[in-house]
């Protein structure tokens, strides 16, 4: 299966994901779910981690999102936007988590720093970049940047998903890139 682990933008990936939905819906669930999981886990997890800043919650979202896809794959209407559909599910799960956090007094600690430190599959350079994304950018900037970069959604699709004007999305996106570039260039000096 041709599939980028980080971005899903090509038509072949889109067709593969849609085929997985079709296979799951027609009862050939397990192998198709496995393919889908391997293809989308980094996007879903990366997005959830950026929203929640907690690895346990991000893992929960990844888990629940896959189960949700498994049970509702038959309701996906092929429109060439399977990642938008998946990310909408993940986003709703993240928002549920954030709402649940606001209802309890004890707010879970952000634990992503420790997780990154222990994760040997991520290089030091990439750890720095993830850290900057999670600390330097505002919540809005981070969400918009990662929705575009990781899941390949267009700015107008992000605008529709987050119920904001496309111009706002574009300006926040550019600001996020500018902030990150400035910090990375400063560190390189």
């Amino acid at each position, binding site marked *: 299966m041709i599939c980028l*682990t980080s971005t899903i933008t090509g038509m072949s990936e889109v067709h593969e994901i849609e085929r997985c939905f079709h296979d799951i819906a027609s009862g050939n669930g397990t192998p198709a*779910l496995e393919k889908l999981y391997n293809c989308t886990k*980094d996007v879903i*997890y990366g997005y959830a981690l950026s929203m929640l800043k907690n690895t346990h919650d991000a893992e929960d979202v990844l*888990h629940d999102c896959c189960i949700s896809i498994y049970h509702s794959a038959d309701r996906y209407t092929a429109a060439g936007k399977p990642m938008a559909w998946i990310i909408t599910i993940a986003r709703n799960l993240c928002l549920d988590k954030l709402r649940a956090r606001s209802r309890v007094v004890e707010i879970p600690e952000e634990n992503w720093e420790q997780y990154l430190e222990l994760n040997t599959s991520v290089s030091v350079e990439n750890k720095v970049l993830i850290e900057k994304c999670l600390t330097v950018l505002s919540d809005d900037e981070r969400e918009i940047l*990662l929705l575009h970069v*990781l899941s390949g959604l267009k700015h107008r699709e992000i605008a529709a998903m987050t119920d904001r004007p496309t111009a706002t999305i574009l300006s926040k996106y550019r600001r996020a890139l500018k902030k990150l570039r400035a910090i990375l260039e400063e560190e390189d000096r």
Partner: protein
Amino acid sequence: MDNRELENKIATAFANIAPDTLDSVLQACDEQKGRVIVMTEKKKRTHLYAPLPG
């Protein structure tokens, strides 16, 4: 560094970040698939009153 380069860097950084939880996902899906609710035959209501003599 132009925008495209930076975007690629970010995408690469987030690749391989997710833990492998495939087994627990597959297990959860199998468990839910195997959960069957047995539907018993609905009892027919019996008439409480005898029909009026014609």
